[in-house]
């Protein structure tokens, strides 16, 4: 077993409601794993279980193969940066960062302590702020102190709970780079919780998407965006145009799907048979309005609105059954007039098939 941290079937119940309903995933050594999900999906609960702040109803947490589920918080050697940073208000930045090295758990000699605190101040760009109280530091500086304090005792794993949520956008983007840099420098195994999909894609090696206390999918940003394994993931990570249809033929790696009166083609996937219900996913960037292409899928529709965004032209098109598809074309051209009847096109290989759990859209498209 070479996983650094393994979460096995974690369940946490509060009365009848389950905050975690069987969460399992692994974190490789030196990996930055993002837990991504909407609020209430259980991502922070997972983190609190790993840190030991709450104990799970059932399930195991294994660190290097060793069960730590029942080990008290202070003996876990796991660094934690909580939402809001939890800096000690009555201590200077230096004393905050030195705090772990003064506990019996991580105690070291005075010289060693000074060396390690100086090193971590240098790494996190805090040098010069040693004497400041947390109340005298800016949001970004407080964030760095919290990070430095969680790193100074060289924890096995670092946990970050929405670490940048309180910062403004510009600072947040700078700190994302900073966290990536620190991650690369130290080779630290990190679990990073966020609800922001753009942030997740930017910092993560791999992302685990959580929904209603369960893992919806685990993979790299590319895998999750290009081949989501279910509708939730498809919708949560970027725009998703979806249609449900029936498989009418499978030939030479291409399947034909009947959606209402239209026939659409998609690259085949394993385990499909004739007459199966499938959901088709097309990302907005792949959909082109009124630009015919050879050998592509095509659907008629009416333009509802068209917005010029500079970097892209965003157009919403209503299909004959009322479903609205979005197209995001680059480079942007001048926008379309609303109410105009047109065709939308996309390449066959840009059509992804999701296993259908339930009917997403009607089957009554008119040709």
């Amino acid at each position, binding site marked *: 077993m070479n996983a650094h941290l393994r979460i096995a079937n974690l369940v946490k119940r509060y009365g009848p409601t389950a905050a975690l309903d069987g969460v399992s995933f692994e974190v490789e050594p030196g990996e930055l794993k993002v837990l991504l999900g909407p609020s209430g999906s259980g991502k922070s609960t997972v983190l609190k279980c790993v*840190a*030991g*702040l709450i104990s799970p109803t059932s399930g195991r947490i294994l660190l290097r193969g060793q069960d730590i589920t029942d080990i*008290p*918080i*202070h003996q*876990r*050697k*796991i*660094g*934690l940066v*909580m939402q*809001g940073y*939890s800096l*000690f*208000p*009555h201590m200077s930045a230096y004393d905050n960062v030195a*705090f*772990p090295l003064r*506990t*019996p*758990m*991580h105690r070291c000699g005075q010289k060693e302590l000074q060396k390690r605190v100086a090193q971590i101040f240098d790494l996190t760009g805090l040098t010069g*702020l040693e004497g*400041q*109280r947390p*109340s*005298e*530091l*800016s*949001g*970004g*500086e407080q964030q760095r102190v919290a990070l430095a*304090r*969680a790193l100074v*005792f060289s924890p096995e794993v670092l946990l970050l709970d929405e670490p940048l949520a309180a910062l*403004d956008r510009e600072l947040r983007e700078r700190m994302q780079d900073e966290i990536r840099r620190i991650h690369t420098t130290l080779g630290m195994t990190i679990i990073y919780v966020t609800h922001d999909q753009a942030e997740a894609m930017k910092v993560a090696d791999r992302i685990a998407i959580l929904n209603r206390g369960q893992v919806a999918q685990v993979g790299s940003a590319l895998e999750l965006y290009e081949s989501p394994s279910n509708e939730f993931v498809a919708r949560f990570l970027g725009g998703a145009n979806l249609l449900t249809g029936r498989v009418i033929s499978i030939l030479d790696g291409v399947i034909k799907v009947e959606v209402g009166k239209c026939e659409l083609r998609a690259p085949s996937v394993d385990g499909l048979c004739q007459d199966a219900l499938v959901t088709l996913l097309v990302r907005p960037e792949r959909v082109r309005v009124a630009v015919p292409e050879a050998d592509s899928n095509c659907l008629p529709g009416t333009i509802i609105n068209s917005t010029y965004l500079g970097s892209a032209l965003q157009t919403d098109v209503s299909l004959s059954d009322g479903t609205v598809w979005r197209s995001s074309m680059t480079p942007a051209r001048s926008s379309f007039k609303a109410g105009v009847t047109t065709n939308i096109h996309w390449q066959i290989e840009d059509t992804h098939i999701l296993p259908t759990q339930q009917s997403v859209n009607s089957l009554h498209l008119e040709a």
Partner: protein
Amino acid sequence: MVTVDKEEMASSGLFTKVAAAAVAALLISPIIVISVLSFSESRYLMFPPPGYSLRWYQNLIQDTSWRHAFLTSIEIAIPVMFLATLLGTAAAIALARSQSRAKELLITLTLTPMIVPSIVTAVAAFLWFAPVHLVETPIALVFSHTAIAIPLVVLSVSASLQGVDQSLELCARSLGASPFLAFRKITLPQIRAGILGGGLFAFITSFDEPVIALFIAGTKTVTLPKRMWDGIRYEIDPTVSAVSTIIVLFTLFLVVLAFHFSPRRTRTSPPASPETGGRQA
């Protein structure tokens, strides 16, 4: 409103000042009268005094019963202070962290000794300690006074706990501190002022408590308020006014002490760091 009526503001400010001065005079004048009386040369409590002397202070020092009473009060107030501080602080922390649905009820129960009339507490204490032959002992007074002093400590510590983020202790634990160390290093320094303040209040409560003392003290454990009661009741002794003056000064000293321990609340605003300064600009 663009223009503000300056005259109106000034007059309302004047009214506030006059009212404040009147209330202050009402509160302070009895203290001033008793202080002046303590320097009287008359052996009757009459105001203004016909002449001035230090004879009542002299009497206070020479009369061993007064000295004993003072020492007895101190001997009782000190253990009360420690007991009430320990128990009250523990109770305040437990109440702050309680997730129990009966939390409100528990808070009310903890504060009852402050609400119940002291005469009721005194009778109850007497009936409680009489069968076990503890009436007229300092132990009975220490326990009774501790009971009425605990709510003051609970209130004081609870107030200072309000400003303490409870997640800080959990955070300290994740950084390697045991539960006790996390409490000692993180929570305790932040509520120290509340604990010291509560402790001083507990001391003062016991030190000037007359009602329970009347029931329990008897003739063997005479506290200062009990001795003062006797002084007025049987002798109309102006020494009482000298004692009162000393108690006022003593209490004033304790209050100043409490202020000295409490952290500076209005710290000068921190210099804006380049980052915040830049963003605000």
